[in-house]
């Protein structure tokens, strides 16, 4: 009779072989996939945004998400050069990135700017002199977002409607001073909403304070979505399709209108982090998201939809997703997103020019407490 007793050594040996076999696929993957780091707003490194590139280049993108450009700058300041290969930032913070030497110079010839509308060939904020530091990926407009059951597009064509008695206690704010004060500055008639004199700043503060009795609340991202969806709030200045586009996917009857007084433009872009060890791969990623296919994908990200600067991607949106394209302003003819920019109804979001950022922030705190 054969000796079938399992010795301790045999058990350990079999266990080791079994564990090794089970772990082999992940070991192989871990050995072959290059890791690339990305500092970004939430959603930019989710599978719908990066899976195709990851598969194409056998790379794993590891995100570090931030909330707000200032947190991004603080994170970079606290990390050694080379920590982040890709940096996703709003245009107003790219200049700060350049000033602090957090990003590498880029060669404009590497990117498909010819596919972009002319307005984005030399986008202000992304260049310092003749040197390129960031490539625009998406943008959107901020105006008045509203529930169509309560506020018509015609009514939303003026910021003055926010003061209408019938909207008392129905006006909400996304809790960030920059876009709110930006659009209210336009309402006050400032042609450069963030570059205003002390007198105009005083007028803007008084005008904003007069809106407070109408205000229902100040919300974070989740709060903005739920309050607009539930009908708690019917109108919000200073936000855009990045909110209403998400709500519409969920069946809400909402849209964003850019009033006659104008709207604010936010812009997303990608840069290569200073000291990146995978700068070539990071360049390939930016080339990928600038391509027509990458741009079409970016316009429809799960996190929120946005306008893209690529003309071929516009064509694809119009033919494949006409309804989304219409809401985003990516259609042909008068009133589309590019037309609004050309008619100078859209102003790029910036940091305050003549006041300190903390003056705007302090006023916002005082406004919330008023």
């Amino acid at each position, binding site marked *: 009779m054969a000796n079938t007793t399992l010795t301790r050594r045999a058990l350990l040996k079999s266990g080791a072989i079994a564990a090794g076999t089970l772990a082999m696929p992940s070991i192989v993957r871990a050995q072959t996939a290059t890791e690339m780091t990305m500092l970004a707003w939430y959603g930019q490194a989710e599978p719908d945004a990066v899976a195709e590139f990851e598969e194409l280049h056998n790379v794993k993108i590891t995100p570090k998400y931030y909330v707000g450009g*200032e947190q991004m700058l603080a994170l970079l300041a606290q990390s050694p050069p080379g920590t982040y290969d890709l940096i996703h930032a709003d245009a107003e913070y790219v200049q700060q990135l350049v000033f602090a030497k957090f990003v590498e110079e880029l060669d404009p010839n590497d990117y498909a700017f010819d596919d972009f509308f002319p307005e984005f060939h030399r986008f202000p904020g992304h260049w310092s002199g003749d040197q390129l530091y960031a490539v625009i990926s998406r943008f959107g407009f901020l105006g008045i977002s509203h529930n169509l059951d309560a506020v018509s597009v015609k009514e939303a064509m003026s910021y003055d409607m926010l003061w209408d008695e019938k909207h008392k206690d129905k006006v909400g704010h996304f809790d960030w001073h920059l876009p709110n004060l930006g659009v209210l500055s336009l309402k006050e008639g400032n042609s450069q909403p963030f570059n205003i004199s002390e007198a105009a700043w005083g007028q803007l503060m008084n005008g904003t304070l007069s809106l407070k009795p109408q205000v229902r609340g100040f919300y974070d991202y989740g709060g903005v979505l739920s309050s607009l969806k539930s009908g*708690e709030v019917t109108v919000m200045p200073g936000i855009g399709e990045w909110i209403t586009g998400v709500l519409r996917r969920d069946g809400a009857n909402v849209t964003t209108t850019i009033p006659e007084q104008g709207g604010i433009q936010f812009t997303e872009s990608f840069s290569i982090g200073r000291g990146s060890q995978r700068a070539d791969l990071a360049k390939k990623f930016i080339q990928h998201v600038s391509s027509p296919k990458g741009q079409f994908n970016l316009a429809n990200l799960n996190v929120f939809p946005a306008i893209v600067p690529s003309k071929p991607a516009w064509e694809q949106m119009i033919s494949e997703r006409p309804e989304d394209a219409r809401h985003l302003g990516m259609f042909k003819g008068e009133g589309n997103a590019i037309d609004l920019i050309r008619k100078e109804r859209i102003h790029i979001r910036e940091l305050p020019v003549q006041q300190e950022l903390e003056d705007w922030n302090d006023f916002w705190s005082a406004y919330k407490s008023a």
Partner: protein
Amino acid sequence: MTTSISTRRLSRLAYSGLWSLPLPLWLAGFFLGPMILLIWLSFWDVRNFLLTPDFQLENWQKMLSANYFWAAYLRTTLIAISAAILASLVALPCALAISFFLGLKARMVVLGLFVVPFFTSYLVRIYSWQIYLTENGIIMKTLAAVGIDSGSLLNTPLALMVGLVTLTLPLVIVIQSISMLSLDKTLIDAAYNLGCGPRRVLFATVLPAVRPGIVLGALFAFIFSFGDFVTATYLGGGKFTTLSILIADTVKSGQQWPRAAVVSLVMIATLLVSALGAISYAYRRA
């Protein structure tokens, strides 16, 4: 013989020292250490969104001279006091019933039920209150069905109180109940024997005797409400700027951690003074 006694004394000292050690260690590591760091941070500077070690008084001057800071301070204090009073008043009959009217088994079950809310996230509980309080919520729809249209309850002082009482009530009930359960019942018998009616027994005997429990319950409710961020944000709609919201705003814009540290230190000082005052009142001889 002497050596044996001193060895025994030493061993007893070492034993008691070992048991006493975690408290000062914990206090040093998790209270004094962070406190010193916070005080130090309040004198730092922020340059180009970057925290820079410094020693400047500007953060203190800036915050303590800002009207919005004092408005938030007053509002936070009033909200916390209101929540503490409300929670104590609601808890009192519950604690009396648990302590004097329920049998042992029922008492254990009911006290256990008051611990159950702590099993779920406070944030989730507050979010679920939104469903009830919103304009299209259950409460408003029920009221509308009987012809009462009062709009939404969200973002109102009432919603704030609902949230804070949700947070604090179970704890206040448990503290008050423990205090009442440890009351010497012969005092109540004596009061009745001396001819007191039920009301006088309650106000002249029971309540003075359980004062520490009532005051400590209210103190905990005050402390939790004073520092709460979730209710003020999600049920108050950020409309009632409290000190916690102010801290978040200060950090969010401009990375002003040093100024947020100033607000935090004022909050800690307020809570320390309140706690010391409340404890000395609770155990003061009548």
